[in-house]
């Protein structure tokens, strides 16, 4: 089991990872927190900026950062860090309200 590390990434790093995503869905298939059908392009589009739809918000809140999405990624991306960015955005929006 790999050691826990600080997983939050900066906006520019998240942007780079999102741009590198090939949309193969492997991370979503390996996720034990995702409870409803969701496509990777919707998730990628809403992760970085703009409005967050209800299914993506539910998924972001349900994600418990287990890291199961990282090993299956064929291009070595960190979906958990992207989900953390989504969580931060949701958290900040709640703080503003």
């Amino acid at each position, binding site marked *: 089991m790999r050691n826990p590390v600080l997983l939050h990434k900066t906006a520019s790093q998240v942007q780079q990872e999102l741009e590198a995503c090939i949309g193969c869905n492997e991370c979503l298939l390996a*996720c034990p927190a995702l409870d409803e059908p969701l496509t990777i*392009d919707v998730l990628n589009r809403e992760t970085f900026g703009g409005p967050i739809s209800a299914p993506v918000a539910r998924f972001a809140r349900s994600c418990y950062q287990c890291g199961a999405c990282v090993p299956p990624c064929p291009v070595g991306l960190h979906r958990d860090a992207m989900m953390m960015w989504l969580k931060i955005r949701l958290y900040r929006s709640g703080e503003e309200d």
Partner: protein
Amino acid sequence: MPALRSSSPYDYAADREWAGTRGYPLFFAYLKPRNLLRIGLGLLIAVAGLVFCIWYSRNGSDPTPDSLVGLIYAVLGTAFLLLAGLLYSLHRRSRKSKKVIGGLRSALGWHMFFGLTGLALIFYHSFGNFNPRSGTYALYGLIALVISGIIGRSLDRIMPRLIAKEASKALTQDGEDRIEAISQQLQAIVEHNTQRVRGLTSSSASSAVSAAPERVRSAGRGRTLHGPWDLAYLTLEETPQELSRYEQSYRLVPDRKSPLSRPGALLPGAQEQMAALQAVEHAMRREQFYRYVIRYWRIFHILLALVTAGLVIWHLEYAASLVIPTLFH
């Protein structure tokens, strides 16, 4: 994704305007129809088992763990617990299951369903009889295991939210590294003050030079050009040190009443930046701690499952030593 290829990495101002789903509550639950079905089925089995257990305890001929009814409860409970333990583990490892989005989440739901229902059935199996040590310990182990699972599930909900809170502190509003931003600000303050101190030094030095009386130069000139030939000769003229004591000069060290005497006065804003830096470091440490909690609680749950499995096997061996001779007779 054209929106991602903008020159600015993250438009925070635009993000504030969105009208989508907002907020991240500390406690939340999403009850889907599938989850409700599992909860309903689990409650039905648990309540039906409890009603029958109470009825059989009052009206039955042999309300004991090793009676036929008690053994049925035991077999059902053990089967449920085995399913709880194996189903999710096998599902996670099988390649076929990963071809369905949400398949693993469904398996996790059944894992919780079988674990909770199995514990209830094993509890009914005891019929309130806690005399055998092995069975009691196995039951305690199962209770601890289920409680650790419930706590773990709660931690899985709460901890990521706390991590998001701490990570939010470690990032600027634009999503960049706050430590780097603070370091740059500190560097700017240091550079600004260095220039200021240099300015003060050069201005004081130049003013001192301009304010110095002509006699200093003449004394200097006299000292260097016309040194005494007699070593016992003591000049009555003022030495340069004595001259500098009397002359008017600017002091770089302020007096106590001056606002410049306060700590950090020469580096305005540096204390605040250092405090912000420490706050970010604390936030990152807390983030790491929360991640450790999630991870090690999972390991604790697995270890507890192994210990409980050992206790159950011990109890099964004890039960077999009682049941098998009865069957042969």
